[in-house]
């Protein structure tokens, strides 16, 4: 496979049985990413941006089109037909996702959450401890918070933790859904530094940003979406 990820003619239709309604969330999407590329997606609310990422991650089921991914373990694999077990493996080891909305486990400490990310991919205990601390330090998460429950964190702290959890894995493909939306400038810069570091390490990224300036400084190519379709692309 020439690309790390090839999305071809992707369409997603939600069928709402009780309303007898079909929602065409996205249609005819073609996007390809080479290893190490960072591609951004912009567009109005409801234009279908998150749908693309969730379709790649397996949260949404796809009936039309294909998403071919060049996996380290499986080789080229179509994510729209991969089994749940394969997706679970890829999520643990190869594909990271930072969601637009926070998903934190209620009673797991910040430190545990980040560490789990590493442990589930087989990182040895000591290395996991060390990398966890390094990551929490980078985001300047207050040391007093490391061992407390994220449920009590501020929005920005939760978000930073969420990103730390995904990034600490150094995934082969990282999907970012508005990772900086509600962060202050300082935290945004921390995310930026990490993204730049990941770019250097060759991580391939597909990200949604509403902060255009932030995105344009980082990405290789940018797509804009309108009513479920790609309307425009700009390369930098």
């Amino acid at each position, binding site marked *: 496979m020439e690309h790390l990820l090839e999305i071809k003619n992707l369409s997603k239709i939600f069928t709402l*049985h*009780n309303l007898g309604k079909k929602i065409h969330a996205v249609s005819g999407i073609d996007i390809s990413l080479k290893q190490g590329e960072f591609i951004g997606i912009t567009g109005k609310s409801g234009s279908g941006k998150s749908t693309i990422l969730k379709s790649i991650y*397996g*949260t*949404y*089921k796809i009936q039309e089109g294909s998403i071919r991914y060049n996996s380290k*373990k499986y080789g080229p694999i179509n994510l729209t037909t991969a089994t*749940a077990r394969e997706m*679970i493996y890829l999520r643990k080891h190869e594909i990271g996702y930072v969601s637009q909305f926070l998903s934190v486990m209620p*009673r797991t400490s910040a430190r545990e959450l980040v560490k789990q990310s590493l442990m589930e991919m087989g990182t040895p205990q000591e290395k996991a401890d060390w990398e966890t601390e390094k990551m929490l330090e980078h985001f300047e998460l207050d040391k007093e918070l490391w061992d407390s429950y994220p449920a009590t964190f501020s929005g920005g702290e939760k978000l930073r933790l969420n990103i730390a959890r995904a990034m600490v894995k150094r995934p082969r493909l990282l999907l970012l859904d508005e990772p900086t939306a509600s962060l202050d400038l300082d935290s945004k810069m921390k995310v930026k530094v990490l993204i730049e570091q990941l770019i250097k390490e060759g991580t391939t990224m597909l990200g949604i940003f509403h902060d255009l300036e932030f995105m344009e400084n980082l990405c290789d190519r940018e797509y804009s979406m309108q009513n479920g379709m790609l309307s425009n692309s700009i390369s930098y």
Partner: protein
Amino acid sequence: MTGYERPVLSVKHLNKQYGRGCLKCVNKASLLKNYCPSCGTVYACQDISFDVHPGEVVGIVGESGSGKSTLMKCLYFDQEVTDGEAYISVYENGEKNLFQQSAQQKRYIRNNVMGKVYQNPLLGLKMDFSSIGNIAEKLISAGNRHVKMMESRGIELLDKVNIPVHRRKEAPKKFSGGMQQRVQIAKALSNNPPLLLLDEVTTGLDLSVQASVLDLIKELQRELNISIVLVSHDLSVIRMLADRTFVMLEGKVIEEGLTDQILEDPQASYTQQLVHSML
């Protein structure tokens, strides 16, 4: 690592009917939901197949009467299956259908390679025995005879599930619902089973107690890397614990997938209804 990962549990075409069936319902065409109005037979589980992998939590959801508990009872031999197969990798190298084993072998399997927590603690515990005695009972069934060792294992387990060790001699009937579930969990874990069956472990508990039992399960799962089949009609429990989820309706699995996919992009009309009723 190879491409093929061996499941801990493999269930194939499991069927369970309560009643003999009649000519009208042999082909299951004229059933009212899972029930034959002519002869009263209930087809509680119909052609259920699934695998559970090492360290995986598989969730099973569905409305009341959909067959969830029946499935769990069949797997733990509390009920005899009508037909079907089940294999456990640590028993006879996963080559023998558990349902065809002798009563004695089934007892062995129950006591050594599985643990179960019942929705109703009355079914899982002897309410008048001491808590540690309940744990010892399972250890004895598995062939342990060494009293000191059983005592220390019991203490270790009660501590693990956060029951104060000084209360180990007390009978579960004196405990709160949440504590009783913890004792059941301790008992189920006593022989280090690779597979744990949990049937509505948190139903009927206060929210805060529910949360602490769920935390405990999550923690144990992480620490012991045990495989779990988790039955619940509460989607928030499933969301929190399950990697994959099966949806049951009228005795059949109608949908399965990654838990987040089932919750965010449910396909079947029934699943959409179930998920939306939770929002």
